[in-house]
């Protein structure tokens, strides 16, 4: 093939955010077309666990390459609610990556949690739900959900719980986690401000003798502000993040949602 069709130069020929893979030409006159089952829809989520609450937040932009599909597509969901609006739910799931897989995963976990309630006559614990989510992800070990999930709620001691996952179900309980397109921007900020990494007690020594500041549980209002700061920073520097910020806050009283607009440029 001597002539390169202009469409092969467009961003849509890049397989990372399209169902179509780039056109390959293996021999002159022969073009190979392929379908990819995955796409990347951008966006970012984060979670922070407090003493008696967990906040999970995500932006609401959904994009394909340089195009914005919609400015309001939630990535943070209530799991195990009594109805479609999620009333009565106690667990929060956030997913980034491939939006269709994220939705499928949310639906599946939601029904699993409901089934648990019907069969056991009680709400599932966050710990059990976290394990259940891991098994769901691992069950698709060889055709994974293309999503990075975080799960949060209040644990059996009444303490904020947060779990983060890789694509195939490897998971860990953490204090805070940023996931998705702007994870690399947000995560070091959370290390610094939530776990007080690199912060030392002034005058407590020189060099490595300095005493590190111990991380203490943060106030809920303070954490809300950290989340807002993290996202307004990410919005400035990452094109896939923006439009709106959805914050779900789990406490012993259930889940409260706060929506605030983000820059739409």
């Amino acid at each position, binding site marked *: 093939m001597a002539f390169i069709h202009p469409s092969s130069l467009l961003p849509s020929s890049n397989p990372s955010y399209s169902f179509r893979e780039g056109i390959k030409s293996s021999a002159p006159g022969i073009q190979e077309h392929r379908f990819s089952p995955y796409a990347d829809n951008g966006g970012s989520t984060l979670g922070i666990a407090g003493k008696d609450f967990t906040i999970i937040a995500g932006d609401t932009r959904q994009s394909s390459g340089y195009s914005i599909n919609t400015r309001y597509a939630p990535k943070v969901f209530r799991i195990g609610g009594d109805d479609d609006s999620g009333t009565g739910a106690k667990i929060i799931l956030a997913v980034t990556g491939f939006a269709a897989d994220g939705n499928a995963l949310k639906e599946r976990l939601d029904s699993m949690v409901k089934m648990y309630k019907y069969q056991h006559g009680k709400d599932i614990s966050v710990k059990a739900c976290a394990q259940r989510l891991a098994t769901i992800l691992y069950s698709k070990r060889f055709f994974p959900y293309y999503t990075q999930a975080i799960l949060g709620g209040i644990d059996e001691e009444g303490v904020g719980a947060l779990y983060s996952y890789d694509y195939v179900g490897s998971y860990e309980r953490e204090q805070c986690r940023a996931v998705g397109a702007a994870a690399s921007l947000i995560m070091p900020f959370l290390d*610094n*401000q939530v776990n007080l990494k690199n912060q030392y007690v002034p005058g407590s020594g020189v060099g490595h003798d300095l005493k590190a500041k111990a991380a203490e549980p943060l106030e809920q209002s303070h954490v809300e502000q950290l989340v807002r700061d993290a996202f307004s920073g990410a919005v400035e520097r990452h094109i896939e993040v923006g439009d709106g910020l959805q914050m779900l806050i789990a406490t012993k009283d259930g889940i409260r949602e706060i929506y605030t607009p983000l820059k739409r440029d």
Partner: protein
Amino acid sequence: MANPMSIIGKNAVAIACDLRLGLQALTVSNDFPKIFQYGPDVFLGLTGLATDVQTVSDLFRYKVNLYRLREERDISPQTMANLVSTSLYEKRFGPFFVNPVVAGINRTTGEPFICGFDSIGCIDFAKDFIVSGTSADQLFGTCEALWQPDLEAEDLFETISQALLSAVDRDALAGWGAHVYIVEKDKVTKRLLKGRQD
């Protein structure tokens, strides 16, 4: 190889870099500064291919020395920025693999100045901060969240240090301590940050 960054404050600028030198995952040196001084208050940070970092820093040493001899004056950060830009663009089709950062104070106006470049000399005149290197993403995040306008010298030092250390701790290819320069009118303070040694 890891990253210098510079940020601007009130009548002051800061420029900092980590100290790691590596070949992909292999750490070669943990004492490899990437900031070079070209006048009483003009600094250049260089990231990228180590051989080019050394070549380019030496090239500017030569160019700035000649400038000083010919003009009998020190180069201003703005002039330095344009010199860097034109020198890089000379190699438009065989570039040096470096992403420079310039920081300094203009002695005539007293104004602080920072800017960054791509490898062929396109200048990014930023009013707040410039980041460069393997931890650029992380630095964008920390700087965007921690930076605020009109930071005084001491707060500027704290801000750039926290931003740099937190960022390189999330980058396997950067770290091993850092150098921080705080440039004020007629005063330059250089500090060594120990940082994580792993």
